[in-house]
């Protein structure tokens, strides 16, 4: 039985829980994205989302991963609102019997999250807020998961 949990959080993420002892998952891969300071140039980050759709989109990509890899648990937690340097922006956890599925599903989830889930970053730098531009790299990373 494979479970999906998604959440939008407005407060700093709690540390990752200890491993559950479901006994079936030999492998857990956790990706954490955090606010980089870019050599001191970044003072803060703001994350805008589309309430309702953001959560639905996170569930959609989790279901897509679930159909593609034999995984036991997928959890996606994303911060929104204002974040400080070092804060976790996103945490994606995938538990599976074997590591290959856990690694691939987690990398897939991050790639598609960055190209399909309605979230937008704004950076405070030199006292001025500006929107982050989407990176072509991220579009390419997402494209590699599409059927040839």
């Amino acid at each position, binding site marked *: 039985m494979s479970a999906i949990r998604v959440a939008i959080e407005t407060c700093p993420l709690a540390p990752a829980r200890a491993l559950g002892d479901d006994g079936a998952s030999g492998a857990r891969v956790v990706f954490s994205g955090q606010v980089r300071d870019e050599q001191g140039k970044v003072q803060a980050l703001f994350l805008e989302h589309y309430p309702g759709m953001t959560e639905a989109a996170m569930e959609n990509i989790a279901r897509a991963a679930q159909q593609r890899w034999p995984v036991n648990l997928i959890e996606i937690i*994303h911060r929104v609102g204002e974040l400080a340097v070092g804060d976790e922006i996103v945490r994606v956890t995938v538990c599976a019997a074997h590591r290959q599925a856990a690694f691939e599903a987690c990398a897939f989830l991050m790639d598609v999250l960055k190209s399909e889930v309605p979230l937008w970053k704004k950076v405070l730098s030199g006292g001025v807020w500006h929107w982050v531009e*989407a990176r072509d790299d991220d579009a390419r990373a997402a494209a590699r998961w599409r059927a040839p």
Partner: protein
Amino acid sequence: MSAAPAATVEVRFFAALRERAGVDRLTVTPPAPALVSVAALCDWLAGQTPQLGRALGDTPRRMVAINEVLATMDSALRDGDVVALFPPVTGG
């Protein structure tokens, strides 16, 4: 020939496009040709106010969701749809 019945769509803007448009949502009743595609709706919207025209012009790369599901600029619209327009997403 009678006119097509009026169709109302809710338009939502996010992130840089929301700031440039100066508004986060609009309820509009565009003429039928503006509903054949999201692209047509955007063209129509751009003609409604100078600020909207500039906001859309300044945000040439756009994504769209219809009723909270990602769609494309070719997607057709129906009465009651919620159309969200936004710059490419940058979460994660």
